[in-house]
């Protein structure tokens, strides 16, 4: 009987322990902050005695850290913590694998990137970095790259992408480029040139001379081709430009002006408008066969078409209802539905690469706005506002929108500069992209692979 009692007690005790495992105060936290995550980016450690063209390996390590810092800061999701003189002590190399987390925590860093860079015998650079969870004292990711020194910026962008992805859960957009129209000269006779650059404004190259007026470039999904509008021979037509070869060719043999081109998501087609005898409709051309299909047939202006990422739908701009509004139709031109119903005029719809939103330009009472709405027209949000904001283009992860902004003119007719800007999907973190000259019509490349 005593044994039984003991057993009972033991079992009861066990039951109690099991229950007590769940026995907790439960705290519901549903209020948080959306501040940038404090992250420390240290210079990649490298030898100052190994010299590559343009500097020592150590210099490259510092430059790459700067690029990563700039990328992450510009995203608005990170705040780089300056290590200052704090973390200089100790052997750099051992601390690379075994950072002193309490030091980093003390200066408020929650994530830490460190790494090294060295010169290989074959002349390439070996770049290695690790991302650490400072509060959890653990490694989150680590990657190693081998590259020719001239690619150092790309490698830095790839590192930024890896860090961004690991910490936010979604793809980065730093290893991307932007094609746009560079503008110079007086507004009444602007010289416009196709230009391309990294998304941070570096590695800038002009692609055309400015002899012909060029407008609205857009990337193919491979980022190797651009479709754009050129006034070559005073005949505005849609052209293709191959970035590698520099080759340009006219797309199709349309009797009227072709404009507003955009690639299909698979890159096999270009959708565009043709204006013929005063009426603009939407056409799509198969690039391989050059077969042309007409998608809209209406006396209204139908333009600015953009495919959904699954290629099943096309959103476009039309004034068929009396004023400019945004419409969505099936990819074959059927089931045309109006989706914008707010006051003012809506134009330049562009489908997000994630498929969940359509970005647009809206005009209302003398102002221009960049905004987004769901493909069914609901959930409209305006992200930017100015005298003239126009032409949104999405970062490949669908989180940032780039557009151009024109300043008003003063009374003497001066001013009116155009520049590129980015804004986060939240409507915050508006930033200007620095370009050598004035800039308009940006188009963001997909992730370069």
């Amino acid at each position, binding site marked *: 009987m005593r044994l039984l009692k003991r057993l009972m007690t033991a079992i009861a005790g066990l039951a109690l322990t099991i229950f007590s495992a769940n026995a907790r105060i439960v705290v*519901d*936290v*549903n209020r948080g902050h959306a501040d940038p995550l404090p992250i420390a980016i240290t210079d990649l450690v490298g030898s100052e005695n190994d010299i590559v063209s343009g500097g020592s390996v150590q210099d490259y390590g510092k430059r790459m850290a700067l690029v990563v810092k700039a990328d992450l800061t510009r995203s608005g999701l990170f705040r780089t913590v300056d290590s200052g003189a704090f973390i200089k002590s100790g052997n750099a190399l051992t601390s690379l694998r075994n950072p002193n987390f309490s030091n980093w925590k003390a200066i408020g860093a929650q994530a830490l990137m460190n790494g090294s860079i060295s010169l290989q015998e074959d002349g390439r650079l070996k770049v290695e970095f690790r991302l650490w969870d400072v509060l959890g004292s653990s490694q989150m990711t680590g990657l190693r790259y081998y590259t020719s020194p001239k690619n150092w910026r790309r490698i830095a962008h790839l590192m930024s992408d890896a860090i961004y992805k690991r910490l936010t859960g979604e793809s980065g957009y730093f290893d991307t480029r932007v094609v746009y129209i560079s503008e110079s000269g007086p507004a009444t006779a602007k010289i416009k040139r196709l230009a391309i650059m990294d998304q941070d404004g570096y590695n800038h190259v002009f692609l055309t001379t400015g002899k012909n007026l060029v407008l609205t470039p857009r990337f193919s999904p491979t980022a190797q081709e651009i479709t754009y509008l050129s006034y070559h021979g005073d005949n505005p037509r849609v052209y293709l430009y191959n970035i590698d070869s520099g080759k340009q060719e006219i797309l199709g043999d349309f009797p009227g002006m072709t404009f507003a081109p955009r690639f299909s998501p698979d890159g096999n087609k270009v959708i565009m408008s043709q204006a013929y005898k005063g009426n603009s409709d939407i056409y799509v051309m198969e690039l391989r066969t050059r077969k042309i299909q007409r998608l809209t047939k209406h006396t209204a202006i139908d333009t600015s078409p953009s495919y959904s990422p699954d290629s099943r739908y096309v959103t476009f701009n039309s004034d068929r209802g009396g004023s400019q509004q945004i419409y969505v139709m099936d990819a074959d031109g059927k089931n045309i539905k109006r989706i914008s119903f707010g006051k003012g005029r809506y134009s330049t719809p562009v489908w997000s690469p994630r498929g969940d939103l359509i970005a647009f330009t809206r005009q209302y009472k003398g102002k221009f706005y960049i905004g987004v709405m769901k493909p069914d027209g609901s959930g409209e949000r305006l992200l930017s506002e100015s005298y003239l904001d126009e032409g949104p283009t999405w970062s490949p992860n669908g989180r940032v929108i780039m557009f151009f902004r024109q300043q008003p003119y003063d009374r003497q007719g001066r001013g009116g500069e155009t520049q590129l800007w980015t804004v986060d999907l939240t409507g915050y973190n508006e930033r200007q992209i620095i370009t050598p000259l004035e800039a308009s019509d940006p188009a963001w490349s997909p992730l370069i692979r």
Partner: protein
Amino acid sequence: MRDAIIISLVFHVVVLASGMIAIPMWRDDKPTEMRVIPVEMITVGEITKLRAQEKKPDPVKKIADAKKKPAQRKVEMPPEPPKLASTMPLPDIKSKPKKKIKDKKPIKTAVNRAPRITPKTKPRRFNVGKLAVLLDKREQSEPNIIEKLKDRDFGPEKQISSLDLEQQILSIADAIDKHIFDNQCWNVPAGAKGAAGLRVTVQVRLGPDGELIGAPKVVQSSRMTMPGQEFFRTAAESALRAVRKCAPYDFLPKDKYDLWRDMEIIFDPEHMLNG
């Protein structure tokens, strides 16, 4: 002998089960009977009340705002969905110096912040906690209120004690929530597309000084490494960072250590991302 064990097992299970069912029923019977609140807990309880008051918009201010608005609005934009009602996390409002935001601010704050859940809306959890504490007493080195109350004979007194306990647990939970918010420990994961299913439960064990004992653990931690669950992993990591950043939890009442030694903190970004 074997039968006896089985019988006793069944008996215990029945007792436990009936306890689980019965205790909440007592409480629901006379929810207004709560009279005795341990003095040392009032501080935390007061915070709860104070916060509730803070939430109330100042009526005077509200009127002032309402008066201001028509005058301030230069651009007669149609009523747009508030900007902050985003599917994306929102960086600090202060960081964007925009006029139009200013005059909408009061509304936004209200929209953005999840309504406070009042104690009475979550009885189930308290019951579990309450039961747990009751059961946990075996492991407790010194007798607590429950222990003392348990020795008394009268039913009504027990009733009060359970309410009491609930109040204490609630106050502690609210204090921790407030601590995490006030110290900006939780940075909501950025970029999550559909916030649904990103609720993260973290199990935490604290020492008597409020320091973390061992690593906080994510329930469902296996999900963190699954492909395609990057957003959950991000959410989970943000929750772990929050728990660690906010340690030590040394503001908790030392004499109630038994109550807060083990706890679960649930981080739910849904209001932040979709609200």
